[in-house]
Structure formats: structure tokens, C-alpha cells
């Protein structure tokens, strides 16, 4: 009788090999992309306070979301929980939202974050942010956030493409994205995305939430902090 264990192991090995080769091939094209280094002086000139804020800047509660644009759970939270928070807390002026980049999942995560700040230069940070999560695809580094697609998103939002391209090719916001990643890890202790810090801006009291929690978690926490 044929040994099912051997068949299973051989099948798994073949599938794994094929997938690894496919992935390795797609990653090779990214290896020769140069990245500008970021000095400590550059970090010092940047502050999280400069981050775009969704909602009233004087709101009592600030929700800080630590995320990666290629993270599936971040997309899930964006689609399922965020709209209810916007409706009940951000539009009513009770809370505001800040996004802190922690691009760690793939090579396209950093350019995607950079692109949001290039869009911010033209006043469309949150529109671009929403577009990335709306059009996020399953495959990490599968091309949905390639340079061409990032440019296409900018075009669809009516951004000045020449200015956007210049911003992307000169890595204008690379230092800022890197700084945000450092802040996410060191200040907020994030080791996964999404991670949230819900802060009462008056008392400084804060609560940490790890994962794509449902609306009820945020409702309870925000109400307890207001």
C-alpha cells in the first residue's frame, strides 16, 4: 500500500520549492534598488507631531495606529472598524486619528509609506492612505504597490504627477518613514501590525491595543478615556 506520509511530505516539498522559486525570482528585482541612508541628525529634525491628523486636532482622545500598508489585518481593521470610529468619534470631534508607519512586511512597504507623504505634500495624505488600503492585494510585494501602481494611485487622486515622481525618486520622505518605524518599535513597543495607542491628550493616560480588534474594544476604551 502506498505510504500516505511519504506522498504528503513529497507533495509539500514540491509545492514549497515551486513557491520559493517564484518568490525568490520576484524578490531579485528589488535587491538592486538603492536606498538612501538616514542619519541621526535627520531623525532629530523630524517629530511625530508633524504627522497628518484625521479629525479635530483639539480632540480629547488621539488614536495612534501603527501599521504597514501591506498588512492584511490593517486592511481588515480599515474596512470593518475604522468607519464606525470615524462616524462616532472622529466626525463628532471626540477623537482624532494618527497613522504611524511600521513598514516591515516587504520591500514595497517603505515606498508605499513614502508615497503617502508625497501625497501629503499636495494635501492628500488621507485620500492616498485610504486608496492604498482599498486597493491592497493579498500578495505581499506582488506588484500592487509597485512604483507604477503608486504613481497610478497618485494620478487617480489628481495629484501633480511630476511633483509626486520627483518626491518618490529623491526619497524625500524616506527618513520620516524610517523614523516612524523606530518610534513604533521603541516608543509604542509595537511588534505587530496593527497596534494602537489610545491616548487622552489632556491627562496623558493611554491604552495599548494589539491587533485588528472590533469596534466594541475601541468604543469601550475611548469612552473610558473621555
Amino acid at each position, binding site marked *: 500500500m502506498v505510504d*500516505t*506520509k511519504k506522498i*504528503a*511530505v513529497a*507533495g*509539500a516539498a514540491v*509545492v*514549497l520549492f515551486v*513557491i*520559493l522559486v517564484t*518568490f*525568490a525570482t520576484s*524578490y531579485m528585482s528589488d535587491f538592486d534598488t538603492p536606498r538612501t541612508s538616514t542619519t541621526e541628525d535627520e531623525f532629530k529634525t523630524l517629530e511625530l507631531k508633524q504627522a497628518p491628523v484625521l479629525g479635530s486636532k483639539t480632540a480629547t482622545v488621539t488614536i495612534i495606529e501603527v501599521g*504597514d500598508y501591506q*498588512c*492584511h*489585518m*490593517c486592511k*481588515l481593521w480599515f*474596512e*470593518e472598524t475604522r468607519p464606525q470610529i470615524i462616524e462616532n468619534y472622529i466626525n463628532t470631534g471626540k477623537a482624532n486619528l494618527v497613522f504611524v508607519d511600521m513598514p*516591515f*512586511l*516587504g520591500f514595497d512597504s517603505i515606498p508605499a509609506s513614502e508615497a503617502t507623504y508625497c501625497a501629503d505634500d499636495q494635501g492628500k495624505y488621507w485620500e492616498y492612505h485610504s486608496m492604498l488600503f482599498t486597493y491592497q492585494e*493579498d*500578495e*505581499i*510585494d506582488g506588484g500592487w504597490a509597485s512604483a507604477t501602481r503608486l504613481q497610478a494611485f497618485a494620478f487617480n487622486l489628481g495629484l501633480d504627477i511630476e511633483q509626486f515622481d520627483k518626491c518618490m525618486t529623491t526619497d524625500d520622505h524616506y527618513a520620516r518613514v524610517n523614523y516612524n518605524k523606530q518610534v513604533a518599535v521603541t516608543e509604542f513597543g509595537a*511588534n*505587530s*501590525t*496593527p497596534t494602537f495607542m489610545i491616548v487622552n491628550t489632556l491627562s496623558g493616560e493611554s*491604552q*495599548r*491595543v*494589539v*491587533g*485588528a*480588534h*472590533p469596534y*466594541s*474594544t475601541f468604543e*469601550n*476604551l475611548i469612552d473610558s478615556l473621555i
Partner: protein
Amino acid sequence: MNNIFGIIYSKPSYILIAVGIFSLLFIPLIIISEFLFLEPFLVFSVYPETTLSFSLIVTLSFLSSLAVSMNIYRVKLIKETRKIGSSIVGTIIGASAGACSCGPIAFSVIATFGTIGSITSSFLTIYEIPIRLTSIGILGIVIFITSKSLSRECKVNL
């Protein structure tokens, strides 16, 4: 085949083993896959998009508990351990799928192994459903073969 299940699970110890294995697999998997949150409150949540993934975790845990408990019975009956390995292989394959995603496991894997870690994490995330289906298939085969083999051996022993 029904008779075999009846014989095995008429003994409370095998029901306990099956429930124990189900819990040991199901609870960690729903925590890792972010269906159950322990902090800041105990929250259970299944979004419409993740219903399939949750159903596969339930199926995988259930089949693993059946496969392993049946094989423990078989080991005790005929002192043969070969198929228990297949059920463990099936369980491990299924459990590893989707365990990475954007969670702390992925962060650790990527931070430790760099590009290789990133590739592995991507693979386990993208192919979460096919991997779990494969695992369910392996466990199904193991249960089928084990039950047939037990039917034969029980007849011989009777």
C-alpha cells in the same frame, strides 16, 4: 466505520483526549489568527471576510483531535506508531498556515531571518487557505485509513 468511532469514543478517556487536543490546537490558533483577543478585554470576533478562515481552523482542530485520538487507540491496540506521524504532519502544516500574517510571529521571523523570513511569512499568509485545505485533506486521509485499518484489526482480534 461508524462502529469504529462508536468503539473508540465509548471510552471517556478518548473523548477527553480528543477534547484536549481540539482545545490545545483551536485556542492558540484563534488567538494567533486574531479571532480571540485576551487584552485589553476578552473579545471574540469573526469578520465576514474571515469566516472561511475561522471555519477551516474549526475543521482542522476537529480532524486533528479525531486523527490523533484514533491513532493513540490504534497504538495501544497494535503497538504501531506509523500513522500517528501523518496526523501530526497534517496538524503542523495546517497550524503553521496563516500563523504569520502581520502578527508578532511574522515580525520575529522577518527580524531574525530577513528576506528568507519575509518570503516564508508571505508564503504562509498568502497560501493560508490552500495550506489549511491540504492539511485537512491529509488528516481526512489519515482518519479514513486509520478507521479502515482499525475495522480490519478489530475483526481479526474479535
